[in-house]
């Protein structure tokens, strides 16, 4: 009897904070929506929450974050968005997931949406302009896609002998076409042969590397895609296994074992999404928040990878590096 009371007391003590939380009906709810899966999005989530906390919001204390993962199945996005809209969340954040942003924008014109994209959101059609996005959508544009030519240049500079260059592209991206055409244009400019490889899922990545070997590519450019960021370790491993020098779009890839990376700090973009979401929770209107663009592009070299590839990087390449991982 006494034991049961004791346990009941414990239960009560445990329930108390929950009750206290339930008594705060004003706690806003943020829908965190991506096309990806949680296990590979840890860094993004951490960055997003960091940004949110910079504006004073902490999950579980004064804000609730509802996570919705499409697990790389884009068809599921519509239902997930509908659920968030139905729950009348205060804002929907889609860090690093353009399809999610597009789906959300289609589903609601009232709930603020904060996105981040590697491409041009104006061209995507989700905002009217950089300075005045208008409507209920704003966010961060890393412009990472525009750096393809620069990456090709850096790759060619680092591996001057590479005649056949493979470009890994996410076929599901809104920027696929422009990326491919840009790659073709650059190929003729640089006098190299370009092989475009598509990978929209984990399995595709393996397939792409198989065809990469088949096509005897000398070097690889990995174009910006959340999938390639999420699968950075696998990509680095595959590249090492196939002994192919590669350039990526995000520092994290270089850290994970990729040879080089050039681009803005994508994690910082996720942090900015968190900041914007917090500012919106505080009452600012998405229409008044301009699209943020990065100011810094980092060139990171992983010398360990270079060494394992048996690659001696030219002096000019090394001199350009903002960061060298040894």
């Amino acid at each position, binding site marked *: 009897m006494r034991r049961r009371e004791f346990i009941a007391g414990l239960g009560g003590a445990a329930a108390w904070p929950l009750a206290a939380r339930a008594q705060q009906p004003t706690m806003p709810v943020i829908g965190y929506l991506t096309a990806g899966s949680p296990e590979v999005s840890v860094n993004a989530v951490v960055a997003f929450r960091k940004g949110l906390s910079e504006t004073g919001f902490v999950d579980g204390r004064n804000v609730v974050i509802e996570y919705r993962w499409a697990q790389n199945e884009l068809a599921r996005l519509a239902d997930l968005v509908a659920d968030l809209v139905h729950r009348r969340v205060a804002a929907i954040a889609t860090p690093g997931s353009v399809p999610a942003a597009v789906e959300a924008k289609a589903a609601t014109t009232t709930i603020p949406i904060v996105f981040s994209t590697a491409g041009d959101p104006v061209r995507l059609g989700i905002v009217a302009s950089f300075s*005045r996005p208008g409507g209920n959508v704003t966010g961060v544009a890393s412009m990472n896609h525009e750096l393809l030519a620069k990456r090709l240049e850096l790759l060619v500079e680092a591996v001057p002998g590479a005649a056949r260059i493979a470009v890994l592209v996410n076929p599901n991206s809104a920027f696929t076409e422009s990326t491919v055409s840009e790659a073709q244009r650059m190929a003729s400019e640089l006098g190299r042969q370009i092989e475009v490889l598509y990978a929209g899922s984990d399995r595709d990545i393996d397939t792409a590397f198989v065809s990469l070997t088949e096509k005897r590519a000398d070097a690889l450019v990995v174009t910006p895609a959340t999938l390639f960021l999420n699968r950075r370790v696998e990509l680095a491993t595959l590249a090492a296994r196939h002994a192919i020098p590669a350039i990526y779009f995000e520092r994290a890839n270089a850290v994970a074992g990729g040879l080089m990376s050039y681009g803005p700090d994508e994690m910082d973009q996720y942090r900015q999404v968190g900041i914007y979401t917090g500012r919106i929770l505080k009452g600012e209107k998405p229409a008044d928040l301009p699209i943020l663009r990065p100011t810094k592009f980092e060139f990171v070299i992983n010398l360990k990878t270079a060494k394992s590839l048996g690659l001696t990087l030219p002096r000019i390449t090394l001199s350009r590096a903002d960061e060298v991982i040894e």
Partner: protein
Amino acid sequence: VNFLRRGSAAGKQGPGQRKVRGRLFLKYVALFVAVVCLALLSNDLFQLRFSIRDYMAMSTRIQQGQAEIAAAKIGQFVTEIEGQIGWIAHLAWADSQPDEWRFDVARLLRQVPPIMEFAKIDDLGRERLRVSRVAPEVVGSLADRSREPSFVEAVSNKVYYGPVYFRVESEPYMTLSVAGVRRDAGVSVVELNLKFIRDVIAQFKLGNGGRAYVLDAAGRLIAHSDLTMVLSRTDFSQLRHVRSALSGGSTGPPEDDLATEDINGRRILAAHAEIAPLGWRVFVETPVEEALAPLYEATRRTGLVLVAALILASLAGLFLARRMVVPIRSLVAGAARIGSGDLGQRISITSGDEFEILGAQFNSMAAQLQDSYASLERKVDERTRELELANLAKSRFIAVASHDLRQPLHALGLFVGQLHGHVRSTEGRQLVERIDGAVLNMNELFTVLLDISKLDAGVLVPDLTEFPVDHLLKRMDATFAAAAGAKGLSLRVVASSAWVRSDSILLERILQNLVANAVRFAAHGGVVVGCRRRGAALRIDVCDSGPGIPKDQQRNVFGEFYQLAGPRQDQHRGLGLGLAIVDRLCRLLGHRLELASTPGKGSRFAIFVPPGGRTTRNRPAPQPPPVPFGSAGGQARAHHRR
């Protein structure tokens, strides 16, 4: 002793006085508090009024300083970039190999993040190298840029600051070109991302609400503490202080109104400074509220001091008022006690000031009063004793007179009686008769004289009682019926049920004298005695049908030994003292005496007696007068009131 009573009556106004005392106390405290607080408050308000202006001016001056420092820093930001380009700008394209150029530019870009693009143009205006952070390098394109202002202006001025432009209609950029020292060094052109100016501004500690921003000469926003303001191309040029700064160009704040409004409509203090080489302006804004926060804090503290001062002043006022009022109270209380007759009372005040002197004055006054009162009492005692002695002497004299003088008179009467038996002759008997008559007269005269002397001495004290007047009237009837009948006169006494307030014995004596006179002087006709109500008084009339008294003698009849000259001279005409006694008795009793008479027809004497209550009161038996009062008017018998 009367003034003492009055004093005690004044002392009965106690409650009123206490009220006044309380008011004085409060008034004193309130006055003290008011004076102290008014002084402090007016001082504080006065200071506050000027402090607000001073503070705002001071804050504006501080902001002005901040703006100037910010302007210098931003200017420095640009000139530093200029300097960093310097070494590369002084190199001619031909001085190095293209690869070396690429190295140098790569190093420049790494060192100077705001540079988004670098281009080297030779002295002919041909582009030799273009390096971008976004786009691939272009080497030796030889594109003609000789007509661009970035080339033309730099060649002529060594440095060219291009106008601010916005990429993707959002991000501010500026072209900066530097010409080399040598002509063949050409021009180095960089595109600067001006978002980096925010980092410069962010270094300034402007407080929570403080803002700093930079506008170019056209009023476009280049940098702001909040980057989104720049990216969203917020228009600041319409703000009052911005407009005046852009048009007037005065660097100081407007003197008339220091406060203005910011983009969100908050009241702010604004200052601005020009960034010299660029023509831009830095604006620094601080909310008025924040600028004045220290002042408000000081005011709050002053308020606390004021409250403390109020409490202290109240306490001090209370203390001082107590010190003032307590001696006053003890003065008032002492004066009241002295006033109520307690002359032994002394006031004890030891405040060491005027109050103590006043208390001492009060005490000496009370002492003098006590002294004079004591001497007065002594004198009164002496006089009373003297009077008693005199009274005693008089009484003794009267007693001696009545006894010692009557003795020989009685003896004389006895001897005359004995003489009757010894004288046989008719002539002798007549003589004895006359002697007897003379002795009788003398006896009578003596009694009346004694009475008058008693009345004059004031020894007689009337004993006023209320009694029915009818008793007296009946006695008159009984006393004088026989005498009147003997003279053939009719005596009519009208009965009355009225009560009068008087001394019954003295009033009876008055009536006896009047009726006796009437019976004596009326030769024929009759005498009427009756009562009549006249106003508040009862008039007792004694009317006779005697010879009457002429008008000119009516006053004289009340004098001693006055007798009317008339045809009838008989021995029963009396002593001429009856009306004198009546007059004195009436005066003693306070009864008005009236005489109405017509010679030949008769006279009417009227006495106005106050009426008594009709109910018999339970009164103590009348006390006897100290001196016996004998009867007169032919009545030998003396009345003794026992």
